[in-house]
């Protein structure tokens, strides 16, 4: 198993400049000596375990891995990873990571952020990192609440949310992080859930392999201030109707199994509006069901898929990789320009730069 994976990673273009680990790694190698201090029962534990468990699969020298975070509960993440790490300031992790990734292409740079960190105070940095397509993997822990400041509504909270700062209900319409990322020209956008380790790991794997910025939204339970926010997606019975699992190249079917073994509901394009809609799949109608194409250069369908979810009930929430397209990577382009400049002008010569073209000489 390990060997096949090692072979797999050696072909990952996104990581081709990152040195490989010498020996075999295990999850333990990625655990730091720091005591994890999230609230007992927090969804962050599951994500941490999944990431630590996944890292050996990449087979990268761990000194070449960096986790950068902002502020919030999830942003304590780097302290628990035995890699290089920076716990920065609120909202700025994508900017700081951009500087690091664009100057050091031999690093695998991960950003850990939350819904408040990434979408409120740091919204600007997030969208610009996405449009630039810097080689960053952004893990956005979305718990739809402010946890560290003890329970105010966040930019992903549902309208009418009763919190300490909104005793009569919040007035703000929420962001859908996946829609936002697609709108911001993201080349890779995925969504997963903290409690589904297998799915989470598969999404991390796809993100790591993606050259450029990957945004992974992770629905994460805050059991103190917003417990059960994603229960409808986790409870086996409800999830059947609520969750749309996307897989590239597969028809988008969900719900209780139909006669063909796939879900009894499907996503089709409405010929009248061009929008997507959900139908009960009949035997003769199965062909009309949309086949998921994450690699479609046009973001239109991925965006439409992201809009299927009801922001209040979370019904029809797509999870998996919504968009995964190749686009020039910022740090590679930046490096190319440096090389092109040297090719055109020769390696910089300080003496001739300082002298310039118009000089005069004073002799004693």
């Amino acid at each position, binding site marked *: 198993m390990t060997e096949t994976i090692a072979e797999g990673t050696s072909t990952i273009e996104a990581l081709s400049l990152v040195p490989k680990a010498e020996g075999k790694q295990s999850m333990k190698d990625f655990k730091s000596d720091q005591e994890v201090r999230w609230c007992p029962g927090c969804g962050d534990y599951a994500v941490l375990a999944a990431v630590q468990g996944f890292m050996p699969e990449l087979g990268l020298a761990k000194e070449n891995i960096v986790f950068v975070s902002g502020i919030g509960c999830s942003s304590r993440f780097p302290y628990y990873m035995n890699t290089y790490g920076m716990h920065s300031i609120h909202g700025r992790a994508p900017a700081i990571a951009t500087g690091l990734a664009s*100057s050091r292409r031999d690093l695998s740079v991960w950003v850990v952020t939350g819904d408040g960190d990434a979408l409120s105070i740091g919204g600007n940095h997030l969208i610009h990192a996405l449009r630039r397509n810097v080689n960053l993997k952004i893990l956005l822990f979305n718990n739809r609440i402010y946890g560290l400041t003890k329970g105010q509504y966040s930019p992903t909270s549902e309208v009418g949310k009763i919190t300490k700062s909104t005793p009569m209900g919040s007035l703000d319409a929420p962001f859908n992080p996946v829609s936002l990322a697609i709108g911001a020209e993201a080349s890779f956008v995925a969504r997963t859930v903290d409690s589904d380790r297998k799915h989470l790991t598969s999404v991390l794997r796809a993100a790591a392999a993606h050259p450029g910025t990957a945004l992974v939204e992770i629905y994460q339970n805050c059991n103190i201030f917003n417990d059960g926010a994603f229960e409808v997606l986790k409870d086996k019975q409800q999830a059947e109707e609520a969750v749309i699992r996307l897989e590239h190249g597969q028809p988008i079917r969900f719900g209780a199994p139909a006669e063909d073994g796939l879900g009894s509901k499907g996503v089709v394009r409405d010929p009248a509006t061009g929008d997507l809609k959900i139908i009960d799949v009949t035997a003769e109608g199965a062909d009309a069901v949309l086949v998921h194409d994450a690699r479609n250069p046009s973001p239109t369908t991925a965006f439409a898929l992201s809009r299927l979810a009801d922001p209040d009930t979370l019904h029809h929430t797509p999870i998996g990789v919504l968009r995964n397209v190749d686009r020039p990577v910022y740090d590679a382009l930046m490096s190319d320009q440096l090389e092109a400049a040297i090719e055109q002008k020769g390696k910089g010569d300080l003496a001739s730069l300082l002298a310039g073209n118009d000089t005069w000489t004073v002799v004693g």
Partner: protein
Amino acid sequence: MTSQVSSQAEQADGALTGEPAAPGTGAEGNGGKNGGNSGAKEVRRLDRVIIRFAGDSGDGMQLTGDRFTSETATFGNDLSTLPNFPAEIRAPAGTLPGVSSFQLHFADHDILTPGDAPNVLVAMNPAALKANLADVPRGAEIIVNTDEFTKRPMAKVGYEVSPLEDGTLQAYNVHPVPLTTLTIEALKDFGLSRKEAERSKNMFALGLLSWMYHRPTEGTEAFLRQKFAKKPDIAEANVAAFRAGWNFGETTEDFAVSYEVAPATQAFPTGTYRNISGNLALSYGLIAAGQQADLPLYLGSYPITPASDILHELSKHKNFGVRTFQAEDEIAGIGAALGAAFGGALAVTTTSGPGVALKSETIGLAVSLELPLVIVDIQRGGPSTGLPTKTEQADLLQAMYGRNGEAPVPIVAPRTPADCFDAALDAARIALMYRTPVFLLSDGYLANGSEPWRIPELDQLPDLRVQFANDTNHTLADGTEVFWPYQRDEQTLARPWAVPGTPGLEHRIGGIEKQDGTGNISYDPANHDFMVRTRQAKIDGIEVPDLEVDDPTAEAAVRDGQGAAAVQGADTLVLGWGSTYGPITAAVRRVRRDGGRIAQAHLRHLNPFPRNLGAVLARYDKVVVPEMNLGQLATLLRAKYLVDARSYTQVSGMPFKAEQLAEVFKEAIND
């Protein structure tokens, strides 16, 4: 004349006091000895001249000034420039707010400022005349573009009668020149529209002035052909206008005299020179610092006046391995720089005051992370948007204190445009050696002003190489060798710089208070107290050179073997920082020429102050501190040294004038 150069150097900038400032001042008639290509006309020699080009924002005055400066630099004069332009790219044509000007002072001796008042004003339109006339002393020459003195342009600035005809300019030596008409006439064979041809009138004016002052012209012609390489027609039209201006001077009777200002050979030490602006010198200083540190230079920046030129300049030099990142905002600019610093780059962010305000939180993070970072603040008028294109020194206290918590940051300030090069190297030295963000406080006047610069030999540049951490640095009680990111160097108190990619040194750092040594999160009260004091002690302990005091009277006493009691040195000290160096020094020369005793010192390091600053201040009865703010350095001096500093301040967006400061210093001496 040459034999008098050294004595004039002492009096530089002083010659105008109380005298008419016509170009004849300080001149010797030299009619018998014709200048090289001026035909039979009279040539007078001058020791120095101040010219101001003024026109509409769209008239190309900055370009004209730049070209005249280049010609002058090539010729070998000492020079100093003051561009002055509105923040609007194109304010309504012909209005007072739209006036853009460029003042140039050049001399056959060492000078320090762009000059208090112009000897020659070139006014391209009525607005330019009106906006600048108050600065022009009686007797000066004024060259006006008469074509623009028609009813509408004059009405725009409130001239009901033409000032060329109503006696307004009686006290001046006026040269009325139909610049527009002459330019159009000169270009009639080029097939250009009237509007296109008219655009070259600044080159006509430049040609005329180049003739008047015997400037070399090859450089400008080459420049025009290169600038318009893709439009050869336009290039040739501009060259033709430039030559026509020259020929006009040579042939028309109105310009009977031309002037020579000899090269300032004795003012300059031996070496190769070029002209350089502050922002260019600063950019080169950063590139040189990267080379001297053997680290890649990384600039994270967001465009802002008057700092953008540094971003432009550095982005041209990718072949030095320079990465420039134009961020989405000021915060991302410094954020990216800090990220690059974590990765082992020489990281820089460039901005002006409003940008510093936005970057403050990240500067605090850099203080806490103890990573090297150079923060360049090209100060401009504030508060808020303030005066984007004007100069001020009012960010000193922002740089010093503008962060939450105890977050000390070293501050380095250049004193002249060329000095920006050395100051940038010095800021990088401190950042790298002490692993700290450092403020480099320039200002709009230094940024855009220019002067001759002796190009340094590379082997004279400081060695800025640093050693990245590559091994464990601490032994635990059980004998385990570990790496502690906050284990400090005993001498500098700097922490190790362990960059990602170094095996075995994986560590996590952040803005939360860290335990001494391990760098792990710590909320322990005693540890926080210790860390705050340690970070302060690190900055306080930075090595900076002692402050040098220029006090010729005290030096004379020592030289003559007399004790301090026998011959009194000055009892008044003038202490400045940053770009006020030029006008302060010029004013000090004036005071001394008139027999006044005054000592002068200028601070490059504002945090920490030089070790001997307290002792220096204590030696003088009176300490005068001129600043382009409301007394920020004076406040610091008063707080730290309990000295009764006399603050003299101006916040007009313009540099001090030498004459103005000389009066202030004389008052202080006599007080």
